[in-house]
């Protein structure tokens, strides 16, 4: 039995008898399941590859005994921990060894979702119908009428009925092999070991997720002798938890994950990083709009394309060698609702990226215009969609008002969606923030994977420029 440590150094530092005896009570089913699992690991020749995950419960100390890679997990989380291990090293054989409180109560979400995910993992579920480590409380698998320290008058329907986990797992699509076994006599123990062997072997062969429920004895908390406990499992548990194979699919080996890639070129391509310096079109920073840090607010409803326009402006400025930021702000709706964007362009560094008092406002609808017009700095510019905003009133003094029929121009191109690019054109035409060529270059860059859309966008931009009132000389 080389899979058990020669000496249990982790069990009270292996002192005295603890060096070779377990922490389990006399007659505990865990010891039998441990023995089966140890023999299976040995016979399959997977000792080096095995990682045993032992979460909270009596078996949390399984790492005292098994000479394999060991991970102790939080209560109920062993399947999640197992997923982490299996994905980190796909060649590892990961076994999650859990009790009934752990697997069927606190960890039920992880239990079900991991089973359904179906990665080649093996779960050994020790069902002894009671909480052992905390001292004999009601388990999700306790039987009706069973007296425990938290069901002193016996389990009633008020506490819910016993959970048949193997059946629950078997009806999921993820698992390939589910069996319930018992340990109460020699015949059952032979079957149990066979089932555990098959479950781990199927994982080793990369076929899928396997689950073995083991009906086990907890003589201490059942307050019985071990032979009475064996009898109790046979006579009382087995009728509620019938033994046998619950699911057994023939699945070809499929688990074959490649090692992750660490190639520079691939990484750069994924990041969208391009080689070569972009062309510069500006002769200097557009200080005529308000110093060395200019702010813009794009305001509309979801679907107006305010965010895209704002982002294009920020990209264009960054390509020109300036610093720029873009902050979106949405209403809670996935579609529709408000959509505002703050953009800053600075010659060297954007200090404050928020545009509480923008130099330029681009308003796509009347509420946006009403909301933000007064926040625009004195001497600033307000561009608005004159197709949808027909009545302009209460505008603050000393702001330049630029009316451009953004929607109308986009409709004329039979693509209402491009009104944000029309707006960018209008921004360029009315402020000269960056050269026309700069914007067109940025449009070509962002549309490099959809070149068929480029002519439409170029036209939309040109229409915006054409209809804008240029900056007064």
């Amino acid at each position, binding site marked *: 039995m080389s899979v058990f440590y020669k000496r249990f150094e982790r069990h009270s530092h292996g002192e005295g008898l603890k060096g070779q005896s377990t922490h389990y009570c006399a007659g505990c089913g865990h010891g039998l399941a441990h023995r089966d699992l140890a023999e299976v690991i040995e016979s399959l020749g997977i000792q080096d590859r095995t990682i045993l995950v032992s979460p909270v419960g009596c078996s949390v100390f399984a790492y005292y005994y098994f000479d394999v890679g060991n991970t102790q997990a*939080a209560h109920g989380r062993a399947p999640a921990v*197992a997923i982490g291990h299996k994905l980190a090293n796909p060649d590892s054989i990961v076994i999650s060894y859990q009790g009934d409180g752990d697997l069927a109560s606190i960890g039920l979400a992880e239990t079900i979702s991991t089973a359904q995910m179906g990665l080649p993992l093996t779960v050994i579920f020790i069902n002894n119908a009671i909480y052992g480590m905390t001292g004999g409380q009601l388990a999700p698998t306790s039987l009706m009428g069973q007296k425990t320290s938290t069901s002193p008058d016996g389990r009633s329907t008020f506490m819910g009925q016993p959970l048949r986990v193997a059946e629950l797992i078997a009806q999921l699509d993820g698992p390939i092999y589910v069996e319930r076994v018992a340990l109460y006599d020699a015949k059952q123990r032979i079957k149990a070991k066979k089932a555990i062997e098959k479950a781990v072997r199927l994982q080793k062969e990369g076929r899928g997720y396997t689950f073995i429920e083991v009906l086990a004895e907890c003589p201490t908390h059942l307050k019985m002798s071990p032979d009475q406990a064996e009898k109790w499992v046979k006579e009382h548990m087995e009728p509620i938890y019938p033994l046998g194979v619950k699911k057994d699919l023939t699945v070809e080996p499929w688990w074959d994950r490649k090692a992750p890639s660490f190639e520079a070129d691939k990484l750069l391509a994924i990041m969208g990083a391009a080689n070569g310096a972009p062309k510069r079109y500006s002769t200097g920073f557009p200080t005529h709009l308000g110093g060395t840090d200019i702010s813009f607010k794009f305001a509309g409803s979801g679907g107006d394309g305010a965010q895209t326009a704002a982002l294009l402006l920020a990209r264009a400025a960054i390509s020109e060698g300036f*610093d720029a930021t873009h902050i979106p702000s949405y209403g809670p709706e996935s579609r529709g609702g408000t959509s505002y964007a703050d953009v800053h362009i600075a010659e060297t560094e954007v200090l404050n990226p928020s545009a509480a*008092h923008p130099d330029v406002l681009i308003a796509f609808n009347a509420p946006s215009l009403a909301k933000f017009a007064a926040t625009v700095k004195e001497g600033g510019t307000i561009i608005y969609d004159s197709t949808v905003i027909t009545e302009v009133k209460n505008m603050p003094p000393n702001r330049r008002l630029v009316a451009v029929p953004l929607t109308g121009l986009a409709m004329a191109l039979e693509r209402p969606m491009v009104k944000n690019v029309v707006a960018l054109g209008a921004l360029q035409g009315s402020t000269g923030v960056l050269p026309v060529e700069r914007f067109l270059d940025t449009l070509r860059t962002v549309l490099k994977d959809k070149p068929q859309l480029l002519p439409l966008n170029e036209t939309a931009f040109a229409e915006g420029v054409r209809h804008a009132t240029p900056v007064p000389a």
Partner: protein
Amino acid sequence: MAISASTRPKPYLEAEYCKGCLRCIDACPKDCIAQGTEINPATGVVPVVLDLATCNGCGLCIQACPEPYGLRPENERTVDAAGFELEDPAALFGPRDTTAPVPVDIPDRHLPLPASEPLVLKGTYASALGALLAGCRHVFGYPITPSTEGAELMAKVLPKLDGAFVQAVSEVAAVNMMYGCGGAGLPCMTFTSSPGFSLMLEGVSYMIGAELPGVFVNIMRGGPGLGNIGPEQADIKLACRGLGHGNTQAITFAPSTPQEMLDLTRLSFELSFKYRNPVVLLGDGYLGQMTGVVRLPSTFTKPGLPAWAVWGDRDHRRNLVSSIHLSEPDLEQHNLHLLGKYGAMIRDEQRSDLYRCDDAEILLVACNTPARMAKGAVEDLRRKGIKAGLFRPITLWPFPIDALKAVLPGVSRIVVVEASPGQLEDELRLALDRADVARPPIDHVQRYGGILPQQFEIVDKVLSLCPVQSGEVMA
């Protein structure tokens, strides 16, 4: 070769390892085993007694024995009939209880990354790219606004790099997947936001206890409870003072630009492995969504494998990931060890950014996006003749008290600017108190509920504290 009845080993028992459960008695078809009558003086229990005259070596009793060193086949005997050990005692009591080798570190490799033009990225994306550059190929998460874009980007790109993104059943599961993957010695991370981070904290405590690496990017949103999805900074308390139960600390970064989101995420991975401890990166909802210029570094990392990893091969077989230390002296030692690590972090990992602090009389203290509003306010105030400066902690824990101490002598007032009810200020006050330095009066500008303090509010506050001669007031 088939094993015949005559060659099958019979059982033998070392009485000390029999707990007297008697499960073997029923298992034996030949009635070779009986309940004993004498109490074993070493254990205080009555072991079974064997009479193997009719034993055919069927082994059923061995399979019925719950103790690994209880009933065993005769051929595994380590003690002779007189009770003398047959093996070399050194083999039994030596330091090694396993035949597995002692693992060694496989170091990270830092590979060159060809130069490229600056990227234009939002904060969450920048953080994701920082993780990729740090060698992270495993991301576990649960969707939550406003952090989800980071996870979405990872879900898109990781399959192309033969990595894995797993959308967990919950944040609780996500952090435990990190526990497994980090326990296997690989860099892994999650993107989350405040309520999700709350759910992860038990797992964070386990990771700290088990000394596992892992990076948590928490894009803070408005709270408490469900709150809203606006930007807030009210998880500073959680990250600095409340990482789950027990004696827990983790380096906590507060980036303020997309560039820092990338750079500090990379650094988070490095420090997470250096200290074998989780690292928290706190962004605010604005920063997560904010797009800005991001320059890529000249190298990227191909991770090695630390010696302590539970990897699942022969070299790492002896390893254990666990936060259990059952004996009190052991757990105290473990806590002392953790405190030693925290001390090293406090000593070596303080980071801050000082903006116009050299001659500052009014010192603004702010982090994340509010630090940018504060930076704008510094310029405004300087134009009005007020010597303002900004002290920006980049690490919130450890608080960069050493750098702060250096600028304090000329400072007449500190104004803490934050989107929380004083959680940054608490860190500042605690750090000042522990450093035992004289401090000027502390005021603050605070907003809550998903609203960030604005530049003009900061300027107004400072002006109210020290009105300028000209009386100029911001509109």
